[in-house]
């Protein structure tokens, strides 16, 4: 119960932070926000004073800031994000469109990383210090040092440009998933593998593990009944923390491969100073993190009841 309360507090503070940050962004935009927004709406060649003044009057860009701030936060907590300054569509509708695309990409990446990382990590953790363990250490360290955008660049150059196996960018067909999902998954898998390896090595060195083997269970049985459950708790907790890394990766990778998701929308919104869109997407990402971690807290408490307070 206390877990959920603290997650709720976290969610509220996230909303406050996002509200304050986007308000500051709205107020301190370099140049005249009305002109920028008008340019975003009508194109840079079609802006004139009349258009800028119309935008200014419509959005109430002048006026005392305290009242504006309170109204801003009030709208935020009523989940009224307003209308995108660029497209004129309600922000909620825009985000609804994009969230699905991002969610599928993120799920594909996490799934792929779980298929690659933990099995290799557990194999290495079963024989700490072996040649395989050392090779995995070197490979995962090297992979961890490659930022996701660089991984995407390398994959595009090798798989799309040189070999011509996959499209470099695009959306809509299953094969479009492969490249961005791998670009995200390899970095996550490197960390997953390390976590699984360390957890497996420490579980494998415990007296109860040796006892389970000594009483005659086969290696596979010991691993299945005593190993995996203990390894899964740190892995799960880390998965929750990795969510932020994943979201960051999604923001960048989507922009590179032209994926019509929430990250792509966010980068464009920041670029066009579309503050309501920035606010909506940022809030969605922050609350998504809190939600995922609340679920993981509950799941971890189920798998390992000892930790529950």
């Amino acid at each position, binding site marked *: 119960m206390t877990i959920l309360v603290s997650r709720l507090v976290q969610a509220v503070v996230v909303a406050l932070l996002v509200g304050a*940050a986007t308000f500051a962004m709205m107020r301190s935009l370099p140049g005249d926000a009305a002109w920028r927004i008008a340019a975003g709406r009508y194109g840079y060649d079609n802006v004139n004073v009349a258009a800028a003044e119309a935008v200014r009057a419509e959005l109430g860009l002048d006026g005392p800031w305290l009242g504006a701030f309170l109204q801003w936060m009030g709208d935020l907590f009523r989940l009224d994000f307003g209308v995108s300054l660029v497209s004129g569509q309600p922000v909620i509708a825009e985000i609804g469109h994009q969230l699905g695309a991002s969610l599928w990409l993120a799920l594909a990446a996490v799934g792929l990383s779980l298929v690659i990382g933990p099995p290799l990590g557990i194999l290495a953790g079963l024989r700490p210090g072996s040649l395989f363990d050392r090779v995995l250490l070197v490979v995962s360290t090297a992979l961890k*040092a*490659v930022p996701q955008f660089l991984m995407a660049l390398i994959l595009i150059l090798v798989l799309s*440009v040189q070999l011509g196996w996959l499209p470099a960018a695009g959306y809509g067909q299953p094969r479009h998933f492969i490249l961005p999902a791998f670009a995200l998954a390899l970095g996550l898998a490197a960390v997953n593998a390390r976590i699984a390896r360390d957890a497996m090595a420490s579980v494998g060195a415990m007296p109860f593990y040796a006892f389970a083997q000594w009483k005659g269970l086969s290696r596979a049985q010991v691993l299945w009944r005593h190993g995996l459950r203990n390894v899964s708790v740190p892995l799960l907790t880390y998965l929750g923390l990795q969510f932020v890394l994943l*979201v960051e990766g999604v923001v*960048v990778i989507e922009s590179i491969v032209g994926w019509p998701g929430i990250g792509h929308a966010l*980068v464009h919104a*920041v670029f066009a100073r579309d503050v309501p869109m920035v606010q909506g997407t940022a809030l969605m990402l922050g609350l998504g993190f809190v939600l995922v971690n609340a679920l993981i807290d509950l799941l971890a408490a189920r798998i390992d009841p000892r930790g529950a307070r």
Partner: protein
Amino acid sequence: MTAAVLPRALPTGRILVAAILGLVAAFALLGPVLVPGDPFAQSLMKSLAGPEPAAPFGYDHLGRSLWHRLVHALRLSPLIALAAVATAAAAGLVLGVVAALRGGWVERLLVILADALLALPGLLMVLIVLAIMPGTATGFWAGLSLVLWVEFFRLTRATARATLASPAVQAARLLGFGWPYVLRTHLWPEIAPLMLTAAAFGTATAIMGIAALGFVSVGMRAPTPELGLMMVELLPYWREAPMALLTPVLATFALLLGLTLLAGGHRT
């Protein structure tokens, strides 16, 4: 976790870290001394030309020397990253100690703030700060500091809470030593190695962030030589000049690998 189950650090590990980071630093510092030149000077006649004595890494699509652009880029990102890490470490250290010493609502408030910041993707905060602050470099510094202090704060607070409650600190207090003495002799030796790891990791994160935003064209602006920006500029010319693109890619990888090894080597 006992030391026995962990693989022993590769004996060559430390030498490798020193070699990689030393090489990158030496190049960034001594590059223009060895081969004088200007990273902004264009010569379209030499567009994508190969290496020559005045430009050992060849030229980019606008005929600018890649050697000198790389030197500039390898000074810019690490400088911003180090400034942000220094600011974040100082803020995290002070706030962490204050939280552990004072406890009560001060601590609770700081923890809630740190937890909320942790929930927001770092690059997103940097993007918003970049939109607010004038100047890209100062924007990166402020945004990255805002993101990175949380890690230092959490480490400091956790360590300080444990250390300040230890019998050794109680004894020192009973003997009449003041807090400055206790913090210096009891707390700092505990925190310092953790800080080094976090600093190396934070520097790598910051450099990755700057490069990633540069690569998607929302970071540093065009004529500035920056690692991510150089990559995206040279990407269309991959077929004509693969080495031109590989130069910033390899430099970024070497820099990040060195920092990752530095952070990992101290963790276990």
